[in-house]
């Protein structure tokens, strides 16, 4: 299972990198979302997949799953969500204001 998850994280990183390197702004935004999922999946896999009962009061078991990576991932998901929301709005506003979503045309200022 760990190997499968690692491969999946790799695929997500690959797709994310491809999208981030695209010219179109919306693809870049989506690329960061995909990259984020890859990183979270990797974090989950690295913290150890399910190794026992959920660590909740009242469940008797000899082994419990480590709750720390899950707490980390929940926090990271929230942060990613916030950043993604902001990035989407920013991309939309820039498209309105600058009239283009092509990163080639968003290089430095003219007087440089």
């Amino acid at each position, binding site marked *: 299972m760990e190997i499968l998850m690692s491969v999946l994280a790799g695929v997500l990183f690959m797709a994310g990198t491809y999208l981030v390197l695209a010219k179109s702004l919306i693809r870049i935004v989506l690329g960061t979302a995909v990259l984020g999922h890859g*990183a979270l999946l990797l974090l989950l896999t690295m913290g150890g997949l399910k190794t026992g009962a959920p660590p909740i009061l009242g469940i008797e078991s000899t082994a419990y799953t480590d709750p720390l990576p899950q707490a980390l991932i929940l926090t*990271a998901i929230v942060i990613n969500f916030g*950043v993604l929301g902001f*990035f989407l709005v*920013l991309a939309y506003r820039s498209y309105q*204001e600058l009239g283009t979503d092509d*990163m080639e045309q968003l290089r430095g200022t003219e007087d440089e």
Partner: protein
Amino acid sequence: MNNLVILPIVIPLLAGVALIFFRKQIRVQRYVTTLSLLLLAVVTMVLIQQVSDAGTQTLNLGGWDPPFGIVLVADMFALLLMLATVIVAFCCVLYGFRTIGEAREKHYLYPFIHFLLVGVMGSFLTGDLFNLFVFFEVMLLASYILVSLGGTKDQLRESLKYVLINIVSSMFFLVAIGYLYAITGTLNFADLSMRIAETGQDGLITTVAIFLLLVFAIKAALLMYFWLPGAYVVPPMAISAMFAALLTKVGIYAIFRTFTLIFYHEPAVTHQLIAWLGILTMIFGAIGAVAYWDVRKILAYNVVIAVGFIFAGLAVFTEVALAGSIYYLMHDMVVKALLFLLGGVMIGLTGTDQLRKMSGMIRNHAALGWMFFLAALALAGIPPLSGFIGKLLILQGAIGEGFYILAAVGLVTSLMVLYSVMKIFMNGFWGENQLSVEDERMSTRGLLFPCAILATITVGLGLGVEWVNVYALQAAEVLNNPQLYIEAVLPNAD
């Protein structure tokens, strides 16, 4: 347990939240901002005195003991940077009252400045890697908004790149955290340090360390500074000054913390790498600073040079050199903010940031000119101003430990720094006065006061070196002896 340690995070957070309710009342916003920053300064000074008397202070949030709970650690290094942060933020905000403009102020400018401070303070105080990530993100989110607030074309264009680079580096940060957790099973700084000291820093851990170095280097603009000139040029000058003084410094702090406390076992690999990164950063920064004729760009590249120089102290890794780096960090925060604010006044007066279009301003603005001269000398490290001692200690360490290239590049780039800021001074203030008082785009009323505060501190840091050095040496002592930090955080560990 010391509840005072949480206050530098709670005060700006509470103030920022409260200001959301007073969106339209700009006067209220300004008063609350000033008040909370003053309060923050007082709390930080009290903490510095406590740490100086009783050693590193910690707070286990919610009473959960580390390494399982969240712990905040206030050691001297963090506190000195925090004090510099508060002073700089205070001056930038005072400057911002006059220059930023109501449109931005009504769109939650002050709440986001507070949230930026929450992130900066939290990053300095946190005792584990994951909360470092969280506070980094708090700081970055606030900075994204401050860069783009106002929504001019330049701002939107540059903030897109700034946001993208930081999102990608944050992803790398998460990946590095994942690897480190898989290897060691903990993320608490003190616990990590102990475990790695026990098992030894093998190749895998060193690789993860370099990966973390990459992440922090992007945030600290160590060699990976390509995002910096763009993002620091577009926002209003008060905000640029705050960024120049604070944002990269947090990345620098993270590298210092991790590479003195956790990954200090393989200096031949990691610290050598940091030395080379520092050398390249200084060279490229110097080229940029010398090449441009644009006030904002020159100042932004000066930020890059300073980053390279500060890392020289870490690369050398002796207690004296570390003290030099700490001292230089504080000096750099103050003097960079000062230079940015003064540059902002120059740009505001002339309405252009091109050096070739300004000249002779010293006739009507003597105070401005001489303060700029003072800041330029301090930046270049002329005694008795504040840059001198830091440079001296770092270079002493570098030469003593045989880092001759590092020392040579540091000295040569100091000259380049002097040249680049003198270029601004000579072109902007010397020569024929082209600007009559009537043609000026704004008045300097109220703007020179925050600059004067910073200038006084620059001089004070230089003249009061005996007094400041006591604290800088205490900070370096903790950095150089990880055991001190571990004992403070995990008092029951054997």
